């Protein structure tokens, strides 16, 4: 794997290889000595043009557990827009002999843009409203871990589908692995042509919860909405928020997921987020293992290229 830019261009075999590798790394992470030397000669730059605490931390931990040298760069997209271009910023960092770039950016295709124009290996850590591939992978990995397999499972993605890069990466990952996928949320937050991706659409949360084996609840991204898509958070919480009582009333086991950070009391009530249905913290733990697997497989690709050229 040269880059990880999105799930749409990834095949099922590669996804499964990532999962097998992640399983190994998860074992490593549960050992007293959590570090392996796989990325010892590699320098990774985490370039975040958008605020992120957990994704950056998760990547940084994954890199350090693999013994990579790590540098971090954080800037707001708007300040970069006014001055240096994205390409210049990244080229400056690469001139300092960085091998891999983990990048989050507010623009769709930003990771692809860098991959096309520089020699670095690129991991997309979120490009605008497009993809967040490692999140898609770790979500599917977590479902697989919890339910044994993904194929045949009914996965609901609930919330702001339109502005969520997690939604697209989840849809692509789960469909490739043979799950059924349904998206649910206010009609204004569901792209008009989403069914063309092979998912069903609902606007009723209770009905969707009754249908699914797994409910992946997305964060309401008010900061990414430049246009008003629903009247108020109060109304959203009342009609699209999920409570523990709703989950308990289902009389069936259900797996509750959230990519974090949770807006408690809006898309999820606290008692739902903290309920036994929730695997939110398992997702966080798996995030490090899955990101280690991705970095490791990309380093393998790099070694192969270097071996050929040597």
């Amino acid at each position, binding site marked *: 794997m040269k880059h990880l830019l999105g799930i*749409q261009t990834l095949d099922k075999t590669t996804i499964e290889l990532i999962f097998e590798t992640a399983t190994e790394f998860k074992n490593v992470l549960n050992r007293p000595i959590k570090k392996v030397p796989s990325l010892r000669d590699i320098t990774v730059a985490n370039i975040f043009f958008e605020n992120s605490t957990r994704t950056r931390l998760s990547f940084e931990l994954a890199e350090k557990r693999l013994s990579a040298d790590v540098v971090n760069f954080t800037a707001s997209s708007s300040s970069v827009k006014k001055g240096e*271009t*994205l390409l210049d910023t990244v080229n400056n960092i690469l001139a300092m002999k960085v091998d891999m770039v983990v990048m989050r950016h507010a623009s*769709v*295709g930003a990771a692809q843009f860098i991959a096309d124009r520089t020699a670095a290996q690129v991991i997309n850590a979120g490009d*605008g*409203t*497009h*993809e967040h591939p490692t999140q898609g992978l770790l979500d599917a990995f977590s479902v697989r871990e919890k339910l044994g397999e993904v194929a045949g499972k009914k996965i609901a993605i609930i919330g702001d589908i339109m502005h969520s890069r997690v939604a697209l990466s989840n849809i692509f990952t789960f469909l490739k692995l043979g799950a059924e996928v349904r998206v649910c949320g206010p009609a204004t937050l569901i792209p*008009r042509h989403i069914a063309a991706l092979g998912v069903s659409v609902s606007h009723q949360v209770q009905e969707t919860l009754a249908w699914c084996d797994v409910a992946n609840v997305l964060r309401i991204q008010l900061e990414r909405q430049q246009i008003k898509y629903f009247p108020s958070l109060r109304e959203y919480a009342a009609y699209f928020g999920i409570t523990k009582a709703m989950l308990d009333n289902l009389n069936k086991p259900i797996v509750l997921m959230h990519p974090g950070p949770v807006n408690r009391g809006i898309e999820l009530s606290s008692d739902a987020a903290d309920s036994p249905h929730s695997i939110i913290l398992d997702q966080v733990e798996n995030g490090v293992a899955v990101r280690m697997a991705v970095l490791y497989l990309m380093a393998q690709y790099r070694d192969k290229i270097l071996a050929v050229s040597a």
Partner: protein
Amino acid sequence: MRIIPANQILIQNVLLIDPFSPWHRQYVNLALEQGYICQVSPVEQDLQISLQNFRIFPANGLSMTIGWFDLGAHFQDPGNEHKETLTSGCQAATQGGFTEVALLPNTQPVIAHKQEVAYILQHNQPSQIVKVHPLAAVTQDTAGKELTEMIDLIHAGAVGFTDGSKPLWNTDILLKTLQYLQPWDALLLNRPEDTWLAQLGQMHEGIQSTFLGLKGIPALAETLMVERDINLLRYAGGKLHFTQISASDSLPLIAQAKQAGLSVSADVSALHLTLTDENLHQLDTACKISPPLRSHIDREALWQALANHTLDVICSGHHPQDEESKNLEFDLADFGAIGLETFFGSLNTYAPQWLLEDAMLAKFTSAPRQLLRQPLPALREGEKANFTLFDPQKIWTVNEQTIFSRSKNSPFWGQQLQGKAVAVCHNGLWAELD
């Protein structure tokens, strides 16, 4: 490109295509003197003049029409001369086979007063092979609020009125413009797009935009305005032309309005006839244009609408943007693609035989002139020479050697196209093209 006086030149064996000429669809020899067509005769006959000192141009069966006319190009001059100047734009037009170009008013400042019209017109010198025709703004600063002094602008030489790439969103302004222009029989051109539905949109709303997670511009943004504008036209009277129709759903509305006898016309750009939203799958910013490239269903419908005369004109959609505006993250990149040089090649590559029918060639020769009430050149003896000579078979590559526009934002960059203008003649000048 080599430009010399159109004097004492003999074009041998050319297929003359001009329904208004007695030589229509015949292979002829054609002699030029002092910028005029001095003699035309069938290839098998000798010319009746002495050809001593004549420069011979063997056309070897190439085709000739009256000079091509572009109904709406952005030249970015004044204001953004680093993207295109009047001179570089005219070179691009020549290279593309155009002898006349109507210029959209979206410059800085906007073409909204007689001095700005005069600035455009002063470029029409004896040394220029391409004639530019200024289209003036309907509203000050193209902001859609305050009308420009349109009568004054007509007298200054404006050939029509439009806010160019800015839609006339204010219904009252559109109504008043239609009424105000009627006594002058001047054409109002409007870009139909609902600015609310299109806000923050990056590309056509469809499956491709869903895959990419980009905010779409629904076809509805266009059809709603087409419908609104036709209703206003029915109420106010006058003449209305829709620029750059992109959506199939707009077409029945225009066809019905024409059937109802309204003075409505419409154009489509060569870009929308040859590309679709699928060209954006790698986020190529050269394909980020406004109105957006739509689906292949829309593209097919646009071709059909040309054939059945719902659409009257094919324009270049020429909109130069420099590298700093285009080599960016997709959502930060500006809209626009150059189109003058690739106009014929792209269309002819996409629909080789179709384009060469009389009715299709009229869409970028006679039809735009008739809409703007500009004189129609003719390929007859005694007429001022204004024609384009083209080779529908010629294969060429879009690159630094063939693109004369100051900007290089072509969706066809690096590609091979089939069909090219090889020479143009206008304003007493003859240009042999690269």
